[in-house]
């Protein structure tokens, strides 16, 4: 107590020094491994299926990666705080169906539709956050519960049928010519920007560092003066908002009709991308760059299997193996680090 008491003045200076000391390297080992694996996979696929390394094949792949990577950014935040959100699929569903219905009913501009989708997602995410932060029940239980509620909500809006005749308002995010500039799909570019901002935020912003502290030890974080509960609400709210934005991309990449299975299974795909990216499911450690690479890897494997002419479902066997290998190498390095 007495030792730390007389040091209020140089706190900011020493804070700067220690920040540099505790920050992980700009690129972690896991990210290098993933990058290497991706390059090898792409080269191999390029050799065995000549069609793979063409813009006509890479473009759609990136379009499909975008929503996963985008939600993955939020999910990385969540998992860094030692939480989890299994309700994102249901959030996508609600956001997508409401937006689609509004698009069909009224001729709204794309910006409004996107804002609406994001707002719905953020609202649902905030519900998660409030229940988790103030209810103090394990996040997986809360989000299992809210996933059911959101699904009910979404199905009510669907009203036992599909939403047909969705206009092309959101083509900005789509697969078509309107969806990309100079060969880069807009949705993927948005995901990259989101990853870049989140990378800066997690590394240099105080609020971002706080997330690691919360995940490392929630009680210690609280005692260190971090407002844990508002932070948690915010984190789940952001994840919901990103799921809302991803819902727009999913509407745009689909056909002109939307059925009730929209978003189904996405929660596990997102979690898979995050853990493959080296984010520890136990909290306190993780990176959004890894998540982006993880999302790319998952989609590459799934698309690659299809392009090789193997059964599509076989791709998910490789996804499972990827998860085990990625997390396994991370476990080994973590053990070596602890021994050092």
């Amino acid at each position: 107590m007495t030792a730390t008491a007389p040091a209020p003045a140089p706190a900011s200076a020493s804070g700067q020094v220690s920040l540099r000391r505790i920050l992980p390297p700009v690129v972690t080992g896991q990210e290098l491994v993933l990058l290497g694996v991706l390059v090898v996979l792409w080269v191999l696929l390029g050799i065995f299926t000549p069609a793979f390394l063409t813009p006509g094949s890479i473009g759609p792949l990136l379009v499909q990666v975008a929503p996963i990577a985008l939600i993955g950014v939020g999910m990385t935040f969540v998992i860094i705080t030692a939480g989890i959100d299994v309700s994102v699929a249901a959030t996508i569903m609600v956001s997508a169906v409401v937006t689609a219905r509004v698009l069909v009913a009224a001729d709204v501009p794309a910006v409004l539709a996107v804002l609406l989708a994001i707002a719905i997602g953020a609202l649902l995410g905030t519900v998660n956050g409030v229940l988790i932060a103030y209810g103090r029940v394990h996040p997986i239980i809360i989000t299992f519960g809210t996933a059911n509620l959101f699904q009910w909500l979404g199905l009510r809006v669907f009203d036992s049928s599909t939403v047909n005749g969705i206009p092309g308002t959101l083509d900005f995010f789509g697969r078509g010519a309107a969806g990309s500039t100079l060969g880069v799909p807009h949705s993927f570019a948005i995901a990259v920007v989101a990853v870049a901002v989140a990378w800066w935020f997690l590394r240099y912003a105080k609020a971002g560092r706080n997330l690691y502290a919360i995940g490392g030890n929630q009680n210690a974080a609280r005692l260190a003066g971090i407002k844990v509960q508002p932070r948690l609400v915010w984190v789940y709210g952001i994840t919901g908002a990103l799921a809302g934005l991803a819902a727009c991309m999913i509407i745009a990449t689909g056909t002109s009709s939307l059925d009730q299975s929209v978003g189904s299974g996405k929660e596990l795909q997102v979690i898979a991308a995050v853990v493959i990216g080296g984010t520890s499911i136990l909290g306190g450690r993780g990176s959004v760059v890894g998540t982006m690479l993880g999302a790319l890897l998952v989609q590459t494997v799934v698309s690659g299997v299809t392009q090789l002419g193997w059964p599509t479902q076989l791709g998910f066997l490789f996804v499972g193996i990827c998860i085990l290998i990625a997390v396994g190498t991370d476990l080994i390095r973590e053990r070596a680090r602890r021994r050092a």
Partner: protein
Amino acid sequence: MTAVDTATQGGRHGRDPEPRPSALDRARVWVASGGLKERATLLLGLIVVLLVVMSILDGVGLTSGRFNSDYLASTLIAYVPLALLALAELFVITSGRGGIDLSVGSMVSLTGVVFAMLYQQAMLPLAAAIVLAVLFGALLGAVNGFLTAYLGYPALITTLATFYAYRSIALVVSEQRPISGPEISSFYSAAKAVELPVIGASLPLVPLGVFTFLLPVAIVAWFVLNRTTYGRKLYAIGTNDTAAQWAGIDTRRTRMMAYVTAGAISGLVGVYTVAQFASARPDAGTSGSGMALPAITIAVLGGVAITGGIGRLSGILLAALLIVWLNASILLVVPGNEGAQAQLLALGVVLLGASLLSNASIRRRSTGLTKPVGVPGTAAGTSR
């Protein structure tokens, strides 16, 4: 614990002149000591409330069909797999260290397909096919267990990976087509409703699966959990892994066995779904939101602590019963598609309500804010 002490003391000091505690007082003490917060009691209460409400609605004529014992018994066909898989989750979640099994649905699909291949295509006798299917399920569970207990993978990751892997294998091996045939069609008799012998005439027809699948497993599980050293070890490692290790328990082996058990039970459910649908659907356990999420939900609703070490068979069986009957009731009150949707709402509300409520009451007890008995509107009033 403290609530009991203060309650009994308060009773002794405050009410000396009274000759002996009346039934009402004893009930109050029981309530204040957490009797109502006991998960089994809460669930039983909710089931009774549900039955009473539905009987009234049935009497008034607001239901689309008859709500009677025949209807309730017939819904038990859905109860068997739900309760069994929740039981599998009980073993895994109780083993602690973030134990959870997302892959049960995939294991159900895969063992169902394997069972159908053994029974229909390899023409094995029924008993041999069932035993092999269950062993195969145990093997799948052993993979989960080895990765989690021995290699140190977080359970969520292991079972997420095997969820994808097993589901994929089931779909590829079966070429995404359900397997059926004369043998499997006749195997449907294992799940259909029967009249019980001796007393059956006065009772509703109960699905046979309750007796052939659920009851034996439940009895064995109860015995293992409560009357064997393995059960004690399981609760020990779930409560405190380090302490259990120092007490000489092989924590890794014990944890692995929990996953093996979950796999074996999933294998049995795989066989059951083949009987229930009269064909082996490769997506039986994974279609829609899958079987794992409801199973975990039921387990949590049944009072299994997600942090491990706490969980009882009675809670599982009652929670599954509550959900199955609640779903069945909703279908009678809300007809058609809306009814199926309302089931989602009900499940979410019940799960959130139960977990938030029990958490609040645990906190109130642990922080000592529970007032002693005799003060109206305290523990008794707030615990519903």
